[in-house]
Each structure stands twice: as structure tokens, then as C-alpha cells.
């Protein structure tokens, strides 16, 4: 007996057990319900099915049987809000997905923000704005969070308890870093030509670390949010 036949035999057993409890269902009625549900452009309830079926048909029983017949199949009979419809078995949903690769580049603002976060983490939004000297648009942090390169790492123990951001494991993978401490320092940036030989005064490059800062608490998502004013540019 092939495995397919076994599958069918199992259904048969189930249906036999089912049929003992109830009146034998008319197989023609079963075919009708099957066709009606298949052809319907929207889910059908028992009432709608009853109007199409011969009088006296046990629609609820038929639906039960059909549900079992299709239980292990590529298509299942689903009941949503009292209405029935055929749907692709959830474990086969991947068949209905086509993956399309798409290569993108971060916006200038996003990559700059990411760079600041990577060097200066843990860092608050206001600090990022202070370092960059420009206010941040709302979407920048969201985009980086969505890609999964930054995360909320903690809260600063300062008034307003602003959240701090840091980089993630995925960030290290994308940029080929073993650890965040491997980001090049000032001298290396100079040697590699990223910076002028004589950087402007006040230029320093921190030693980045993704540990929790000394003035930080771990992030607790349940902590109520307080208003965090955006950086004031004149103060920058």
C-alpha cells in the first residue's frame, strides 16, 4: 500500500468512525458542498450552503466530514467567523511565496547615524543629534532598527531616562567585524585616508564598546516612556 493510499485509508477510518455517530451522509451532498465552497469567491456560512443544497441536507455534518477529509491534504477546509472556505495548508504557504532579491543602499543620513551609533554606543538620540549637528528625521532610527543593525540597549541614568542605542550581532556580520572594538581608531582612520592628516580641533574617536555604559540601566520595555525632547540645535 503506497503512502498516499495509507493517507486515504486513514481518512476512511476517520470517516467510518464519524459515520457511526451520525446519519450516513449523502455522498452527492458532500460533492455539492465541496463544489460550492471551491467555486465561491468568499467564505460561505451554513445558511448560504443550505439554500443551495437539497432540503434536509445535514450541512453541519457535511462540513465536518469535509473538514476531516481535507485535514491532511494540501488544501484544508477552514472555518473563520462561522464561515467556511478552502485554504492552502499552512505548512505549504511557502509554495505561494516567491522570493525576489533586492539590493539597496542606506540613505546618507542612515549610514551616518549608524556610524555614529557604532562608534559612540551606547548613545541617546539627543547625543546622536549633538554629535552630528543635525536633527534626525523620524524614520532614520526606525529603518536601522527594522534592518536589525541597531537595538535599544539601555536607558541613561539622566533626567528623562532616554533610551540608548547600540549595534547588534547582525551589524557585525554585515560589516565583517569580529567585535565592535575592532572598529578602526583615530590613527587608523588617518592612516587609511578617511581623515585629514590634521583633523579639526576637538576631533576624537571613542573606543567603541557594546557593553552597558556605567551611567546606564538595562532596557526594560515595560518602563513607561517619558517625553524626550529632541536636541536643541543652538546648543550643539
Amino acid at each position, binding site marked *: 500500500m503506497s503512502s498516499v493510499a495509507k493517507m486515504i485509508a486513514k481518512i476512511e477510518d476517520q470517516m467510518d468512525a464519524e459515520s457511526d455517530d451520525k446519519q450516513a451522509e449523502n455522498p452527492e451532498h458532500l460533492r455539492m458542498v465541496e463544489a460550492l465552497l*471551491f467555486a465561491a469567491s468568499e467564505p460561505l456560512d451554513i445558511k448560504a450552503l443550505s439554500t443551495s443544497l437539497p432540503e434536509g441536507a445535514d450541512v453541519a455534518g457535511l462540513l465536518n466530514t469535509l473538514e476531516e477529509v481535507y485535514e491532511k491534504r494540501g488544501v484544508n477546509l477552514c472555518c473563520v467567523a462561522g464561515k467556511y472556505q478552502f485554504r492552502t495548508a499552512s505548512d505549504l504557504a511557502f509554495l505561494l511565496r516567491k522570493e525576489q532579491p533586492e539590493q539597496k543602499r542606506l540613505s546618507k543620513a542612515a549610514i551616518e547615524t549608524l556610524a555614529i551609533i557604532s562608534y559612540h554606543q551606547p548613545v541617546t538620540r539627543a547625543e546622536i543629534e549633538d554629535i552630528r*549637528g543635525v536633527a534626525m528625521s523620524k524614520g532614520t532610527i526606525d529603518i536601522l532598527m527594522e534592518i536589525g543593525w541597531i537595538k535599544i540597549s539601555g536607558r541613561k541614568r539622566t533626567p528623562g531616562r532616554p533610551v540608548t542605542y547600540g549595534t547588534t550581532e547582525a551589524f557585525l556580520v554585515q560589516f565583517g567585524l569580529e567585535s565592535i572594538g575592532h572598529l578602526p581608531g583615530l590613527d587608523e582612520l588617518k592612516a587609511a585616508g578617511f581623515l585629514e592628516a590634521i583633523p579639526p580641533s576637538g576631533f576624537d574617536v571613542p573606543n567603541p564598546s557594546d557593553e552597558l555604559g556605567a551611567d546606564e540601566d538595562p532596557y526594560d520595555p515595560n518602563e513607561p516612556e517619558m517625553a524626550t525632547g529632541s536636541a536643541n540645535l543652538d546648543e550643539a
Partner: protein
Amino acid sequence: MTAEQAETFDEFQSTALVADDEALLITVDGFEGPLDLLLTLARNQKVDIAKISILKLAEQYLEFVESAKKLNLELAADYLVMAAWLAYLKSRLILPQEKGPDGEPTADEMATRLRWRLQRLDAMRAASTRLMGRERLDRDVFGRGDPEPINIVKLRTYKDTMYDLLTAYATDRVRKLGGKSYRPQMAPVLAIEEARERLERMLGRISDWSALTTLLPFEWSGGARRRSAVASTLLAALEMARDGKVELQQASPFAEIYVRDGQRGPDLPSEASAPGA
């Protein structure tokens, strides 16, 4: 009335015509041409169309056309052409069989051909009925009423590299801290070092007296740049003269200064004496 019917029979009213002795009633609207009419007449002979009497059929058709004329109905040209042809066929069918001129088909052959055309039209009509009687999609049989579409999932990857990250960091930080480092704009001055270097390179070509002003770099030939070039070149020439590398000559104050290679060897006879000397 459909367009097709109108085309073939628009001269006809919905009139009934008595077509033959058997009181066959033919309504004439709705025929699709002479062949359609002939097929209907043939059907009314109630024999297999393959064995139909073409002679009888021709007579029926001609009678039909006659009655139409009596009723003053204007027949479409198609019908009259067919009538003429059938009249000819009829006359040949009643005559003893013989080959027509120029290998024209015999009357029997013509009759067979007409019979076959009627059969073929009949067969195609039957086929069209069978075809249209098939279970048709969305009328008799139905596909999935609520198909589940294929979801296109965009697999987004980013091209940004370490280089991009560091460039962004450096430019962003430097910009905030006052932009680029100071780089003064160069004044339009030809450096004496540069003038001297130039002059030294030219030594070989000034073995004879050459006006200093003709030795200026081409791109320094106008306005303030020229003044700077003259001054620097003169100073460079004086320096080189002190080192014995060139000789200088000037006829009078403010006159043109001449330069020549100082290493050209001891006083070779020269055709070119110093001009203006």
C-alpha cells in the same frame, strides 16, 4: 434581427411563403444566405442529405425565388446568382449526360459537389452545436472562486560596506567640527624657485641671447600674473648669473634684458651679436 441576418435578408419582411405543392411553409427572415436556404429545403425533403435529389432541390429553390418575386420582395444578389446557377444545373440534369465543353464537370459532378457542400455545412452546424454545448468555464464549470495569489517577498539586502560606514563617520564628524581644514587660496604669484627650475630646464635652448620676456611661461602672460612672472624670472636669472649659469645683458635702464646660457663655452664666434648692444 442580428447584423448577420440584416445583411443577407434586410429586404425581406417577416413573410411566409408557400414554397411548393406540399404547402411547405418557409419563413424567410433569418436565412444565412442561399446555401442556408438550400439546406433548409433539403432538410424538408426528409431524406438523408447525402441522397437528396438535387433536381428537386433546384426546383424548390427556383419556386421560392419566383414566389419572392411575385410578392415584390427584392432578393439579395447572392440568391439570384444561386438561382441562375441552379436553373443552369437543372437544365443540364434533365438533358442526357455528356461532358460539357472544355472539360467542364458533368451535371452529376456539379450536383455531387452541391450535395457535398450542403452536407459539409450541415456537419459544421452540428459541430458548432456540440462545441457550444460543452461544459464551459465560468458558465457550467468553475475554477477556484477565491484563488490565493502568489506573494512576492522582497529579500532585501544592503550593499553598504565597512568603507561606506567609515567614510560616513569621518565626513559626518568632520563636517560638524567645522568642515574641512584650512587651505588658503593660492595668490597669483610665480615662486622664484619655480621660475629658477624653469629657467634651468631651458638652458640648452638659450645658447644665444634671448629676451627675458620671451622666456615667461605661456600661462603667465597676462596682467598681474605676468608682472609676477617677470619679477620672479628676473630674480631667478640674477641668482643663476651669480652662480655662473647664465649671462645677462641690458643695454640701458628699463630696456629689455637678454639672457644666454653661461656654460656655452669660451667666446665662440657668434653671428648673433647682442641686439641693441
